């Protein structure tokens, strides 16, 4: 692994999360939503935005409504589940 944190790492996380969709779907939904933000913030620029878009396309396969999730929705989802 050369370089730093990149798209590969984000999709690695995505792959690790996919195994937990059935166990804790709410937490995975929140984490998926976060990974898009993570790509945009950690990678930055047009590249970060394009990675975030690509990631959301993958995430919508598991959660079709992920595009509509906002920060308030996250609070509601977290309230329904037991996070940490």
């Amino acid at each position: 692994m050369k370089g730093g944190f990149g798209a590969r790492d984000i999709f690695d996380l995505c792959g690790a999360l996919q195994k937990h969709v059935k166990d804790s779907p709410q937490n995975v939904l929140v984490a998926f939503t976060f990974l898009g933000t993570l790509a945009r913030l950690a990678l930055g620029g047009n590249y970060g935005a394009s990675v975030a878009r690509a990631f959301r396309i993958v995430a919508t396969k598991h959660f079709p409504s992920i595009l509509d999730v906002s920060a308030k929705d996250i609070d509601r989802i977290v309230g329904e589940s037991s996070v940490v």
Partner: protein
Amino acid sequence: MLPTPIGLRWHPDLLRRSAVLAFVCFYLKKTFSYAVYDHWLAAEAGVCFFQSHPTSTMHPTTAKITRNTIILLSEQYPPTRCNNVGGLLICTTGLLGPGGVATGSAASRSGSRRRRSCFWSKPPTSGLNLGMVVASGRFSRVLDRVGSIVRLKSVSSLWRRTEFSRWSACCIANVCSARSLMEGGAPCSLIGRGMFIVVPRFFGGEEKNTRNIMRLMAALNVLAFRIAPRVVPGSEDAHMVRRGMEALLSILKPDITEPGLPPDPRQWTSHVLEKWMGVNIRPWRWLGKYGLP
């Protein structure tokens, strides 16, 4: 032809070539430094978490930190690049006093001061602005301060006398900003307040767990070192990041069982230190793939 003091003569074309060569060397050095820095952060760093009190698990009487250890205190420094990699890096924010409260006032400022202003409103001057400091086998000049408790004011002078000030500045500043980011009010047992620790990964164990540890720690380090300085505390992004990291930890952390991170994250510090002292791996050996020695 230009005469030189030692009698040689420089051809103008030779001068141009020398200038180009110097520029290339400078660029390569800069690129290499950044590459090592990012590589270390993303792949080599192993554990990154926060503790509730700077001295709860790192008190000098209970945890002896010896060689290859760097313990840093928070200070008001802007992030900068690092030239030093390796060694156990421990940052105590020491933000318990009223003078040391990170306000996260980035939104109120702009331009070049933004990055800095989200770390501290002012240098900490009162309260429990104490922490353990400084030991490293690579920086022998500070070995006499191993395990000692110093006030933050004295840390800056300590840094000026040592070689690792760049690295420490980078980490500390981002740690402070990460803390201010995470202080949004979300109750979380793992991402709390106080101490931030990054240690190179030296865990063994199964491949699955190793990769999960690395993924999780890479994300945590990115949170501290890249996202936190870029996000305005209290914003929607900060909220999303906080909730997302909590969810990520709750999902992936149960997988991290082998080779035995304690179930209680607050015991990770002492556990890691015990491992560290027992394993005795040279830090520069970690620069292999994923930090495997």
